[in-house]
């Protein structure tokens, strides 16, 4: 909200300029991907910055992608993996965060630190060990393998963010629940979770995007035709010598849509949570 008494027009102008510049930089590659996905091959190379004209407009990329019967399957795989991972991350992350923030027990702070270390150490360092483990347990080329890895990857940040928020939930409220006879589970699910919903939405967004975009683990753990995700599936159009750019760009443009829908859903949760009104 701009306030004329506190913000001079010049300063406001600079702020907007910076924001606009950032937006432009962030959106430009997306814009480029989308416009080029609607052009024919020649136009992509001849004038990559031009929007599709009637003469250059072509849906050949989308036809190629959707013509590949497997592509719907790839989308489904991405969806299953992302949604299942988010659900597990939120559930277990929130539970651990509740325990860490609510109960005083020996080693509480140490445990919290141990959990937070996961944020600093990239899970990819353990790829070889993870692959060995998956081979041993026969989980290679299953979506379960991906879900397990992504859950492990997302939980540290979830615990870190959620435990901070849960410390902010009024003790009186939880105690009122205890006096009313709510079990600790009921307090967690019925009092605390609704109150930290904005934080849950934040965690969901932070967790979702790297999972959806990941190429590394699908390539290593689940490269089979049946378990390919969209990002991995798009790679079939990238060859060593020839790359079907129409198809790659179309696949990437399509891959933006589901994640956009999920984002809108979570963002609405975020706003609803903020306006719900807390204890006082």
């Amino acid at each position, binding site marked *: 909200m701009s306030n004329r008494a506190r913000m001079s027009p010049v300063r406001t102008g600079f702020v907007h300029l910076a924001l606009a510049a950032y937006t432009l930089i962030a959106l430009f590659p997306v814009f480029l991907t989308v416009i080029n996905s609607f052009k024919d091959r020649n136009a992509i190379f001849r004038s990559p910055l031009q929007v599709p004209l009637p003469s250059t407009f072509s849906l050949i990329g989308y036809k190629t992608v959707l013509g590949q019967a497997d592509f719907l399957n790839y989308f489904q795989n991405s969806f299953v993996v992302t949604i299942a991972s988010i659900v597990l991350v939120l559930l277990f992350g929130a539970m651990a965060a509740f325990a860490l923030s609510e109960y005083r027990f020996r080693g509480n702070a140490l445990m919290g630190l141990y959990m937070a270390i996961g944020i600093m150490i990239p899970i990819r360092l353990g790829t070889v060990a993870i692959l060995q483990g998956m081979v041993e347990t026969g989980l290679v080329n299953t979506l379960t393998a991906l879900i397990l890895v992504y859950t492990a990857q997302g939980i540290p940040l979830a615990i870190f963010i959620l435990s901070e928020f849960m410390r902010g939930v*009024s003790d*009186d*409220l939880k*105690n*009122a*629940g*205890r*006096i*009313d*006879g*709510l079990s600790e589970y*009921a307090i967690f699910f019925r*009092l605390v979770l*609704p*109150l930290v919903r904005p934080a849950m939405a934040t965690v969901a967004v932070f967790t979702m995007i790297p999972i959806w975009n990941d190429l590394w683990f699908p390539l290593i753990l689940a490269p089979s035709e049946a378990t390919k995700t969209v990002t991995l599936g798009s790679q079939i159009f990238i060859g060593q010598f020839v790359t079907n750019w129409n198809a790659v760009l179309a696949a990437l443009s399509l891959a933006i849509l589901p994640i956009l829908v999920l984002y809108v859903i979570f963002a609405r949760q975020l706003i609803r949570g903020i306006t*719900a*009104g*807390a*204890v*006082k």
Partner: protein
Amino acid sequence: MGSLQLKSIRKAFGDHEVLKGIDLEVKDGEFVIFVGPSGCGKSTLLRVIAGLEDATSGSVRIDGAEVINTPPAKRGIAMVFQSYALYPHLTVKDNMALGLKQAGTEKSEIEARVAKASGMLSLDPYLARRPAELSGGQRQRVAIGRAIVREPKLFLFDEPLSNLDAALRVQTRLEIAGLHRRLKATMIYVTHDQVEAMTLADKIVVLNAGAVEQIGSPMDLYNKPANLFVGGFIGSPQMNFITAERLPDFARTGVKTIGIRPEHIALSRDTGEWKGKVIHAEHLGADTILYLETEVTGLLTVRLFGEHRYVADDIVFATPDRAFIHRFDANDQAMQ
């Protein structure tokens, strides 16, 4: 039904002892107030009674039954919190009904009890609203309603009025007093405000640094404070304390400090025991409060009833009413 016995309740957080052996007997239907400065352990004591905090040692009996290992919901208590602690996502009605639903009470019974409580607290127009749509006073009434529907043996109030503004505080105070008369329930109430304590309580428990300083009726505490702390804590403006060194006839009898309440000092422009100068005068209409600097006693507060025309720098003489002088020994205990 609704008596409470505490026996040598101790509570320590690590090495820090918050409650140092509290004994207390509360009879059925009594309105007992825990009062003391912040950090004296009064809220912790209330939480121990509620079962929200485990005592390190000691015994809590409600209606004669030991409850130290009973969860809060099964102790037959209800609690009203300073922050109201209403469930933000439930309507007023559901807020009040949750505890009963959880206990498996029949629907018709729940309806009847909620209706009765909301009638008592004039909450009927708000039953379908959520806490966020209510004012502070209304929220506190909902919190009280939530306690009433449980029909508890003990009502516990944790500084319920401190978040309300002054006018609302007086009004809610009257409502709580009325409620106590109507329900004839046992109530335990924590506050740091001695005015609340004096106006509501049948019995006041003055706590300081985790120990009971004195237990008694409001007038007992006012007229016969057991020690220096209670004398200073009860009464507003505060009791004047004068070291006996300045008053030889008291020092001879072994008195260390004397206390005299501001309202028990007479003032005159011509003659009197202690000559002094007015530093500041507060004209409140019903009262005039004067701060004097006297030669014998140092700073002295005097409370006169009605309007008086003293102003700063006036020379006056103060005379304490001998019958109301409190004597304290070297251990700060009252001397008879």
